């Protein structure tokens, strides 16, 4: 009886992994041979709407000035632009820097200083966006350095009345630091150049990533604003918008530099935070999306559900390995085909991180030359991710539960100007 249950579970695991494998292959082949959709990027002349650019900050003295300088150089009508850094209880020099910029550019830079309330990016966004106008709310992390044309590019999709949120592409700036930064550069390329753009091409559900992107104020208001009880307010926002009839679009040509983690502990903390928040969204929205609201196609609903489940793939994969081992020692010999599929799937599906084929394709599409040589090392990066994702997921599902983790600033270290904070 137990053997039969284990075999059935193993088949379920294999089926899930095969679905994710097929998904990766579809996305990658779409990017290699499919039609490239980027309909809004050529809107270069327009009656531009009033835009508020939010920059949540917590101890960002090393990077915030670069970000503000880049935004001040943006090619956007000054009378329609507000830059709103949100300083959430910084204990370093961030507040002084923001006051300095506010003094020099009083009409453009209007910082918000938080001294109380729930900490964290989501709460900071919720509080500030409720106070400030602007038809479009763009969000950048404090270490991001946008190019002059980026704001117009990110605003352009909102001329489509159905678009609720837009997402641009994040490009690592500190690539050359070490093996980790180089692997993250490859992962980011796969995730954006292939995964996100394929979803855009296929009319599925690109994900709003919480930075280098924005939300239409009306859409934000229609779904109840930013949630403060989540660690992944971006994923949460994506699905609330999609479920409420808004479209999320991705613009591959709207690129912005970011800093990626330069050491493994920081990277693991980042993954665990993403996992927790993403799994919160999985618990909240997977049922509703699978019920397929009338405005969504079946493919969109399926893609949405798979997107919600990407951080569950890691533990599922581990579970499959454990089942296979258990069955082996129980004397059961599963058909070899299952192992083959499991093996292939294991190499092709690891949640949110683009699979090897995707990454190689992305480097080709980016016109990169030799960085693809590092592809074999990506396996080690994926193993670390797999363990971190699985650990957090197991704690979440079995231990703390979906809402059990304390909401706080899980700050990613900054490296600009050398050293860490």
């Amino acid at each position, binding site marked *: 009886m137990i053997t039969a249950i284990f075999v059935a579970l193993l088949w379920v695991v294999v089926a899930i992994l095969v679905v994710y494998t097929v998904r990766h292959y579809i996305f990658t082949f779409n990017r290699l041979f499919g039609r490239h959709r980027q309909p809004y990027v050529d809107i270069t002349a327009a*009656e531009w709407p009033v835009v508020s650019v939010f920059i949540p900050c917590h101890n960002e003295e090393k990077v915030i000035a670069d970000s503000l300088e880049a935004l001040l150089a943006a090619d956007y009508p000054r009378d329609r632009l507000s830059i709103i850094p949100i300083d959430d209880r910084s204990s370093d020099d961030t507040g002084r820097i923001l006051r300095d910029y506010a003094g020099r550019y009083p009409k453009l830079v209007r910082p918000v200083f938080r001294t109380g309330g729930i900490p964290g990016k989501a709460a900071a966004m919720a509080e500030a966006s409720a106070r400030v106008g602007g038809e479009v709310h763009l969000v950048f992390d404090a270490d991001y350095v946008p*190019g002059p044309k980026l704001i117009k590019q990110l605003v352009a999709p909102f001329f489509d009345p159905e678009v609720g949120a837009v997402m641009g592409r994040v490009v690592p700036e500190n*690539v050359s630091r070490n093996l980790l930064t180089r692997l993250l550069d490859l992962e980011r390329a796969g995730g954006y150049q292939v995964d996100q753009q394929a979803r855009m091409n296929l009319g599925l559900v690109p994900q709003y990533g919480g930075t280098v992107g924005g939300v239409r104020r009306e859409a934000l208001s229609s779904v109840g604003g930013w949630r403060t009880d989540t660690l992944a307010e971006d994923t949460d926002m994506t699905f609330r918008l999609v479920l409420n009839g808004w479209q999320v679009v991705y613009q591959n040509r709207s690129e912005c530099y970011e800093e990626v983690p330069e050491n493994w502990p920081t990277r693991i903390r980042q993954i665990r935070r993403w996992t927790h928040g993403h799994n919160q969204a999985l618990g909240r929205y997977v049922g509703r999306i699978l019920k397929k609201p009338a405005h969504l196609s079946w493919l969109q609903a399926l893609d949405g559900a798979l997107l919600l489940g990407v951080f569950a793939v890691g533990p599922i994969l581990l579970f499959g390995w454990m089942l296979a081992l258990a069955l082996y020692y129980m004397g059961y010999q599963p058909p070899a085909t299952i192992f083959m599929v499991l093996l292939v799937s294991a190499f092709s599906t690891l949640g949110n991180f683009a699979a090897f084929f995707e990454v190689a394709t992305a480097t080709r599409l980016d016109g990169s030359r030799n960085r693809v040589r590092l592809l074999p090392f990506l396996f080690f990066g994926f193993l670390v991710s797999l363990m971190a994702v699985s650990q957090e997921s197991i704690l979440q599902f079995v231990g703390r539960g979906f809402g059990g983790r304390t909401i706080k600033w899980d700050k990613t270290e900054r490296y600009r100007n050398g050293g860490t904070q």
Partner: protein
Amino acid sequence: MSAAFFALLLAATALWIILPLVPAIGELLRPTDADPLNAVGSDSGDLTVFADGFRDYLARQLPLALLDTPHAEYTGRLSDGTPFLQVGERSAFLREAANEGTIASLVVTTTPTTLPGGEVFLLELLARETMHGGADAVYRAVLAEMDLSLGERSSVLRWVHAAGNLSIGRASVLFGRASALGDVRLHQGVTFRRVRAARVIAGAAEPGAPRMLPPVVQGTVKFPAGTTRERTYTRITGDFTVPSGGAVLGSLVVTGTLTVERGARIGGSVKTHRDCVLEGDVVIDGSLVSRRDVTTGDGCAIGGSLVAERAATLGAGTTVGTPTSQASVAAERIALHDGVQVFGAVTAVVEARTV
């Protein structure tokens, strides 16, 4: 199995495994491709970026002595060695300097100039005064500080920019960008990809002034069953037709094909998941976005930008944008009929043409 054979087998297996890692280890130890992806541009994305760059380049390179003799003819080299030709009051100087019509120098014209036609400019041309190009000329790039008109069947290989008005003759081909601070007039049969100006006009006729209408305050169109009202737009599932003379209040999203009959008006923006067909004299106050084709009849007016993911065909006299509100037309393929005017930019991914 002997120990030696086992060791050999083990070494061969290890080599077999390590082989794919050799390039990876090499790239890790001696990086050859570890710079950030060169993806974040430092320019504003404006069509005039090349013209601005060329102006800056000339400011650095032009011999200072020329500033004192702007009307003189001059042949020489810029400080970076580029051959240089200044055409002053005697425009025949250019013809004399040409080799069977081919001009291998960077050319600066400093007086109003009319060219006979047929020239091939291998380097850039700066026109400091009004310039009229002749037919069948080939330009690499042109920067005009006043008005500029290019003759019939001209070709511009990279870019052309005029600080005044720009006129492109019939059957010309613009391979790169064209821009002007004033109007750009594209005569019949011009093919191009990216044009930006205060106003882009198709054809020789002078279009009429855009209509200024009061806002729609009440809708007169009955929507089909299943229509949903979202926060800022009305969603209609399937195909839909706005009847002649009808008015729609607010924005409209149609998941099928939208047909707007003659004289109807939509008081917001429009999004269609399939084709969008506007019959004559239709007015859309906001933007128009289609995942397929957009076809407009004669005399339509679109207040905002027009985006078609496949083809856009704008009928005679159609207006996009207004003199006080810029707009863009973007599609894979664009056809502009006589009298179309766009206050802003026209960009085709594959090709645009005037018909």
